């Protein structure tokens, strides 16, 4: 059998091994998402004081399960699929070591099972961060190590696929931007997973009483894994933004140099990310904190602000070139809002930027961290980045991966169309309510802020109860969106209608397919650029110019309001 199949939609040569590896990793990711999602419901309904569903011990256990499954297993399995897709599929390339790919996959599954077993049997009630000297069962640490080794192997495999594709001239010219972005994600993953090895191997030995681990050093190196891995998510997410833009509306790249330099900025300062979690720690001094938390003078923030411009600008220009050139926002009006891929893209950018990005930079400021550290503001921030941003983008691309790779139509397509709306709206309310509750000092990772069993009982203002109620409602809506995603993808993949070997008659039969598949954006011709008259003082992408300035004003306002809140406090230092 020919090891390649020709994709009738895109014309790409797809290596069948890549197909299978993508499928396996995507399925594993979805299983982890399901487990983490069930834990999410339980955790949410416990933090909502009105319900207080679980007992304390079970709450902390489920919080551990939620963190590990979402932030490690779901995200990284999905990213493995993204790496194979961005290399082998987009470059028409072969997967050189298929067997190695399977060994890596089995290692990752084995590691996952070990961790799941220790967590569910109450042998690892240490939460996601597992700060030493809180102690878990040795297999918990060993499981994470195996998982990391597997993931590191896939990263190496990815580099090999790209190298071989280049040598065998599978593509002409340079790497496409999406693959380039995935390449930076892979580079970050390599560094990050090494931090993981550096910290988890000693911790594994410590759990066997074979050596000592300093709690502060643990925090320093662990966050080299814990925060840097969020940078993998960011780089992978931005790569998917470009991918979704291309697939749904034919978004263009304004300037390859700018976008690629921005990706490189993510890689350069990655290990410094650890500092975001150590700003109010006793182990480091102020100059170390200022320098590191700023990622070398905010160059990674600069990178995100660049992508926050180039992705919507590319979308706008791509649509204007194809005729949607009316006014400032005619392109947004004409955009395919019924395409779950496009709506996911739009919501991912907006919530990631406006809520996740702004709060993250503000809380990551050395002094402002005093009024943010370990409060609900922190999970409020990262649910806006890693869930509304990364997971939303991953969900969006799934609606294209199912037809392109699994060759199935999307089941319950109507539900799939509203899924991004539910998920994004729910997560937006949820993360904003969390952030807001955190400004009242509500702690994260806390079973009962009613302090019903404590000797001293601080009382939160009634406003906090209301905000926590809003958070719960938002969370439940988001969980409904997540549940729809799982039902739709699992049904499509296992029971969905198979697509014809060729795409003949797709427009007629493709009711369960996003418009980017049934009627892909037409290829551009040089005349398009000539037809588009350069408009006004706002340049070729006036709508985006307006949007990014609204963003900047919001950013500046939120940032300085936080300095003001800080200045009211006791003098401390």
């Amino acid at each position, binding site marked *: 059998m020919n090891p390649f199949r020709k994709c009738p939609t895109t014309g790409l040569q797809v290596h069948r091994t890549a197909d299978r590896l993508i499928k396996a990793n995507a399925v594993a990711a979805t299983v982890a998402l399901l487990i983490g999602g069930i834990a999410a419901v339980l955790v949410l309904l416990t933090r909502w004081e009105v319900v207080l569903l679980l007992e304390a011990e079970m709450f902390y256990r489920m919080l551990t399960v939620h963190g590990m499954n979402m932030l490690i297993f779901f995200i990284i399995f999905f990213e493995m699929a993204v790496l194979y897709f961005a290399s082998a599929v987009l470059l028409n390339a072969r997967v050189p070591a298929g067997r190695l790919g399977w060994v890596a996959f089995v290692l990752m599954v084995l590691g996952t099972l070990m961790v799941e077993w220790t967590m569910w049997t109450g042998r690892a009630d240490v939460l996601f961060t597992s700060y030493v000297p*809180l102690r878990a069962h040795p297999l918990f640490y060993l499981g994470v190590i195996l998982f990391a080794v597997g993931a590191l192997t896939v990263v190496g495999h990815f580099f090999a696929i790209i190298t071989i594709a280049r040598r065998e001239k599978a593509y002409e010219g*340079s790497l496409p931007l999406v693959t380039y972005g995935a390449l930076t994600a892979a580079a970050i993953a390599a560094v990050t997973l090494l931090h993981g090895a550096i910290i988890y191997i000693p911790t594994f030995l410590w759990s066997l009483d074979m050596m000592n681990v300093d709690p502060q050093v643990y925090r320093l190196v662990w966050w080299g894994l814990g925060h840097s891995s969020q940078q993998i998510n960011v780089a992978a997410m931005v790569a998917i933004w470009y991918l979704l833009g291309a697939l749904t509306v034919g978004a263009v790249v304004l300037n390859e140099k700018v976008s690629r330099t921005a990706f490189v900025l993510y890689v350069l300062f990655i290990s410094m990310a650890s500092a975001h979690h150590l700003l109010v720690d006793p182990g480091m001094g102020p100059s170390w904190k200022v320098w590191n938390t700023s990622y070398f003078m905010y160059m990674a923030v600069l990178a995100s602000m660049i992508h926050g411009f180039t992705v919507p600008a590319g979308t706008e220009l791509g649509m204007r070139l194809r005729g949607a050139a009316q006014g400032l926002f005619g392109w947004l009006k004409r955009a395919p809002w019924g395409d779950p891929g496009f709506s996911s893209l739009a919501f991912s950018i907006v919530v990631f930027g406006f809520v996740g990005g702004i709060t993250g930079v503000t809380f990551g400021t050395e002094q402002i961290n005093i009024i943010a550290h370990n409060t609900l503001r922190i999970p409020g921030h990262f649910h806006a980045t890693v869930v509304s941003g990364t997971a939303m983008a991953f969900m969006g691309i799934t609606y294209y991966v199912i037809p392109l790779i699994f060759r199935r139509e999307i089941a319950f397509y109507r539900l799939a169309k509203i899924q991004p709306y539910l998920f994004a709206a729910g997560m937006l309310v949820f993360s904003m309510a969390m952030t807001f509750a955190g400004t009242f000092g509500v702690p994260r990772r806390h079973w009962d802020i009613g302090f019903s069993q404590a000797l001293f009982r601080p009382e939160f203002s009634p406003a906090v109860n209301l905000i926590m109620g809003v958070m719960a409602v938002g969370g439940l809506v988001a969980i409904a969106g997540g549940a729809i995603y799982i039902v739709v993808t699992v049904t499509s993949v296992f029971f969905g209608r198979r697509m014809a070997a060729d795409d003949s008659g797709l427009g007629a039969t493709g009711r369960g397919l996003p418009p980017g598949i049934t009627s892909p954006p037409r290829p551009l011709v040089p005349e398009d650029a000539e037809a588009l008259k350069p408009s006004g003082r706002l340049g070729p992408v006036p709508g985006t110019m307006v949007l990014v300035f609204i963003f900047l004003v919001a950013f500046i306002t939120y940032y300085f309001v936080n300095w003001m809140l800080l200045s009211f406090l006791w003098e401390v230092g």
Partner: protein
Amino acid sequence: MYRTGIEPPERVWWKKVGRHEKVWVWIAFAWCMVLFAMMPIWHLRGGQNPSGIRHRVDPADFQARVLEFVQEYQVGTDNGFPLVEPPPGGDVYLQASQFAWVPVVRLRQGAEYTLHLSSLDVNHGFSLYPLNINFQVVPGYDYGLRIVPNEPGEFHVMCNEFCGIGHHLMVGKIIVEPADAVADAEGGDR
């Protein structure tokens, strides 16, 4: 000629940047410099910095210091915990352990103290409610923070770093006496 992000561009993609894109990059860069400058500026001009005096400390030694502190300045008990009133300008020791903050301290509004935080066992989180001042408490490290309580009242210390099954029980207390009330009481004594 524009391309999408999934099409390979020509070998040399280092091309001139459009004017409007360049403007945004420079604005973003300038904003990043503001973000960076604010932290050193606040160290020079602002009142709230997490610098402190930082030392390694053996948990047993820290516990001994706390005990000494309590014996020297204890004025009563509160809810079973020793209530301690150190002199203004002095050191205050607050010990975190599963699942309590020891002791309860009484401070004076407007006076400066050095608040020493450390843990005897695992990581804990110092969270002063309702002010929302938060610091990490790490075993083996003494975090000495100069504080000036600027308002009277009863404040609670919540633990906001997960420290085990009784994490949510871990609440301590700091009382701040109004500056004038303290002055009056002292005047009466003389």
